[in-house]
């Protein structure tokens, strides 16, 4: 368990510049340095998934013949995780944008969402290009126009380092700051962005509000980043209970 903690701490210290404030990461590291108290049964089984490597381009392409690959080649017997359902082998594929899209899917209508995302990325370009045209020459180069990079930056800025988990102990419910896995942190970022872009009624299309929110988040402004900072603040306030963590 200390290995896990060390891992989290090193990740925190390694990405200090990620979310703007060195004080936050230092506070997070201080919170995590407190040892957790274990309440789970020692007999509880922990199920683990195998550390299968990801599928890479050098592995056999399932759509082509494999008869040219010799039988003794390790590619024939190497264990790889199959590619994801929506993983496209295209020069334009981006895993973060793909996961972000999956987060918004309702009732399995992912193809409908694809149109929304196409419009949303065009909208990001319009917003940023208008801003770049209006900016003075010395600021023009710093404005990012590519929508994929804007989304990366926004997700990075909205990813929390710690999260509050509720622990019921001795008749009281405590809010305990806990570390996050990378994937969970990314999911929290997506959720902040989705809730921040939610506009009640039919006033605005999703692609417009989402584009605006992403551009704001990439500049460390807006509701989504504010939500993340609120979460960090709550973690800081409850740092005394960090040892109630169940990991």
């Amino acid at each position: 368990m200390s290995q896990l903690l060390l891992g989290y701490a090193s990740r925190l210290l390694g990405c200090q510049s990620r979310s703007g404030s060195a004080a936050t990461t230092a506070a997070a590291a201080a919170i995590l340095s407190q040892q957790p108290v274990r309440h789970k049964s020692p007999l509880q089984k922990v199920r683990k998934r195998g550390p299968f490597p990801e599928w890479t381009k050098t592995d056999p392409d399932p759509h082509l013949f494999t008869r040219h690959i010799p039988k003794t080649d390790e590619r024939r017997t190497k264990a790889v995780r199959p590619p994801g359902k929506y993983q496209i082998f295209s020069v334009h594929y981006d895993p973060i944008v793909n996961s972000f899209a999956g987060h918004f899917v309702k009732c399995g209508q992912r193809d409908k969402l694809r149109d929304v995302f196409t419009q949303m990325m065009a909208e990001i370009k319009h917003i940023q290009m208008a801003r770049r045209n209006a900016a003075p020459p010395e600021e023009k180069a710093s404005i990012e126009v590519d929508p994929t990079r804007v989304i990366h930056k926004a997700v990075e800025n909205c990813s929390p380092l710690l999260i509050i988990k509720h622990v019921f102990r001795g008749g009281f419910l405590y809010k305990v700051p806990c570390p996050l896995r990378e994937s969970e942190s990314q999911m929290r970022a997506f959720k902040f962005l989705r809730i921040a872009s939610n506009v009640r009624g039919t006033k605005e299309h999703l692609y417009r509000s989402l584009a605006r929110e992403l551009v704001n988040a990439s500049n460390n402004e807006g509701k989504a980043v504010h939500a993340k900072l609120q979460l960090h603040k709550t973690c800081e306030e409850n740092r005394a209970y960090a040892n109630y963590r169940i990991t």
Partner: protein
Amino acid sequence: LLSRSIANWLLRRRQLSPFGACVNRRGGASAALLTDESAPERHSLDRHVGLLYRPEEADWQAVTRHFCRPELVRLFDTLGQRALMVRRPALEIGERLAGHAGDGRPCLRFVLYGRRGSGKSLQMGHVAAACRRRGWLLVTVHNAHLWMRHSRELHESAHRPGMFDTAGYGCIWLRHFYAMNQEILPGLRVTKELSWNAKESTPAGSSWKEVIDYALARPRYSCAAVQFLIDEIKLGSVPMPTLVCFEVANCLWWHRSGIKNDAIRRTPLQGEEPPWRADITAKQLTLLDAFKQLLDSDWNNGAAVMSVSPQGALFDRLREWMPRKLLGDEGFAYLDPFVPVYVEPYGPAEMSNMLNWYTESGWLTSEAAATDAGRAELAFLSDGNAGELLRIAGEW
């Protein structure tokens, strides 16, 4: 042995993109091919097909802008530059129209057809801009199918009993018509006396501008004004040739619409309680009927260019794109004989040029868009469709 050689051949082919044939030129993006000729009537089939041209400001604001999708207009505003492609259908129509007018020949009718997004409206825009520069009168209708879907103000028509006026749309169209033909309109005179009602009338010999101003001040008579002006055109009182551009002409023969009308009385069905309402058909709207008269071939000194599009199709014909299917029996019989003009998807040279321009102007921001594989993928995903390419390029 044979299977291994096939497999090797496939392996070698795999190095090339399978869709590379859709795009010209290996080696990534290169400079877009632009022509300096910004006057549409001087574009010729030998020299300018497949090149991009920059429309002049006056042409753009008066004419071409109305034929473009709002997304395209916004793209040009954002990029700060405009470039449209010179393509074969518009030049072929332009060639026919150049020698057509003034011979006493009846109205020549062209019907542009093609898949949704293939570029029919922009081809019409090219023809319209060319004719405007030659001094023709332009009568253009862009939103007829929207008039049928959304209409709040509907009045029973006084000048055509039994039909309905859409006063708001009439006013909007008159303003648009005036803005498009500002240079020509001061010289045009009305040859008949126009009576608006029992008490008011405009005398013969008054200018068209007076008629339009009267209708804008009294919106109730805007559709009547449109009808009177169209009667003037059909009489032949206009000295210059007239070009009629009608986008999505298949909506003129709709048997249903988005508008219900309580004024229509029909025998109630068994057990039906009043009020029973029916859809308004296109035949019952005076504005649409007025423009439909212009698409007939019983007048001289002019031409009509129409497009039929699945965008203007009712729910039962959403997948069709051929004229016979979209127009139906009645529409086809009305328009027959016409010259069908197919607006085809982009060929490899046109696609390559369009991608080069998007890259050069900075709209394609992804690094992948400049590579061979990326360009081939864009060509494949859009399948040569101009509108699809515009939409997909927003993502890259």
